[in-house]
């Protein structure tokens, strides 16, 4: 949990540059990113495959892959992970990912259904937009193994997500981390539910 947990924080826990920090004015003055040492500075984000610590730098494939910074240059910026807002990139038509591994003609079955989950406390309610998820994923990626497709049948908590269950199967690993609270907790409690309230 340590690496993942720290990555979550690094990914967006300290989003507000003006937020109160533990030693105000000291570290911030020297380095705007110092209060979050684990968030990589822009120059160190998305290194080429030969230097990313994932690919074998001696492998032929690593050298032939297009460096992410080059391929990402025209895509909308995000706050974490590889710093691309993939949902926006897809929505804006910047990318047209193939939906099926084998058949290039398959279109996704997009479901435009929002699930609003009320939560206690000061956090806004959660909006789960099926649309943005089904544009990328097949229903079977989540149902029924992770989420039973039945109202009230799924017990979801932040604890379970942080333990890598439910939403945490993807979020914090290959999708934006849970520390980007407002992307899910996006419906103010005094507003009516509406499709326009969906996360980006």
């Amino acid at each position, binding site marked *: 949990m340590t690496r993942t*947990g720290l990555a979550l924080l690094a990914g967006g826990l300290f989003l507000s540059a003006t*937020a109160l920090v533990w030693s105000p004015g000291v570290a911030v003055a020297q380095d705007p990113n110092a209060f979050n040492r684990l968030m990589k500075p822009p120059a160190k984000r998305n290194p080429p495959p030969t230097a990313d610590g994932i690919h074998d730098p001696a492998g032929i494939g690593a050298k032939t892959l297009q460096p992410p910074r080059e391929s990402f240059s025209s895509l909308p910026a995000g706050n974490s992970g590889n710093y691309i807002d993939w949902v926006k990139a897809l929505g804006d038509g910047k990318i047209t990912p193939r939906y099926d*591994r084998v*058949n290039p003609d398959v279109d996704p079955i997009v479901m*435009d259904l*929002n699930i609003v989950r009320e939560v206690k*406390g*000061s956090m806004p309610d959660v909006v789960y937009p099926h649309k943005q998820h089904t544009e990328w994923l097949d229903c079977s990626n989540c149902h029924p193994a992770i989420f039973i497709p039945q109202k009230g049948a799924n017990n979801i908590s932040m604890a379970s997500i942080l333990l890598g269950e439910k939403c945490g199967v993807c979020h914090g690993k290959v999708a934006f981390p849970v520390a980007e609270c407002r992307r899910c907790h996006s419906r103010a409690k005094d507003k009516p*539910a509406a499709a326009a309230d969906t996360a980006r």
Partner: protein
Amino acid sequence: MPVRTRHWPLAAIVSLVVVMPAQHLTADVETAGPDLAAMRALSSKLQLLGRLVHGEDLVRRVTASDDEEARRALARAQELWQLADASFATGDNEAAGNYAGEGLAAVTAVSRMVVDTRRRNSEDKARYETMRKRVLSFTEAFQRVALEKQDRAVAGLLNQPEVTRLLGEAEQYAARDDYAHAIEHVTHASDLVETALAKARDRDTLLHELKFDTPEDEYSYEEQRNMSYRMLVEILEREKADNPEGLASIRKAVEENTRIREEAEGLMKRGDVRAAIGRLEEGTETLARVLRMSGLVF
């Protein structure tokens, strides 16, 4: 309609490919310098190649097949491994790397030439059964939606007899171990159900209200919420490990929450559920404050 293959969509899997041997990532290698790291990576690659070219399963499959080309390709892959190993032993790492790369490409080609039918059949069977369960689960979901909406037009979105027919035929194919056809049928059924469900739910918003059947349920929810915040604060604590001032504030909040939680547990034992809930809410708010102070925006 194009046949859907029901793998993870390409977009979702491209970022998951990891090709580097595990040893390459070990901390001692990182600190020992690039030469040693490269040598260990090469050594791992050779070990992998050795395991692949002499793997019992692959050798058995190739030997049992009457594919002369596959036999020749396997022999070549084994030869490349020997050449790579010999080069590595003499310190010619560049040659070893080249032979190993060629060998891995060769053994991959062999594996594709002689398909492991037993394994593929087993995987297809599992895939078929998963898909069938999913179709049944989505069909039930659709029926619940149709019932909830009380609308004939919605009910008519799903061609249920066709789904039943496809599932029945799929079962017949599966009974004959013909999973290719079984999967094709069940995939078609799945498309029908998912499309109908997507249309039935189009632009809907479902509200999961926060209602508790009993105060005990609410207490249980509060316990879980408090635990969630504790986990977030634990992460923050690690982040602030080298900041004594920050750490002190966090630990103070954690201690305060622990004390409040114990009080809540005591109240619960005495049967004062409402008061216990209230105390837990206060504890959670204590943790929320420390998270906000750290810059978490909520």
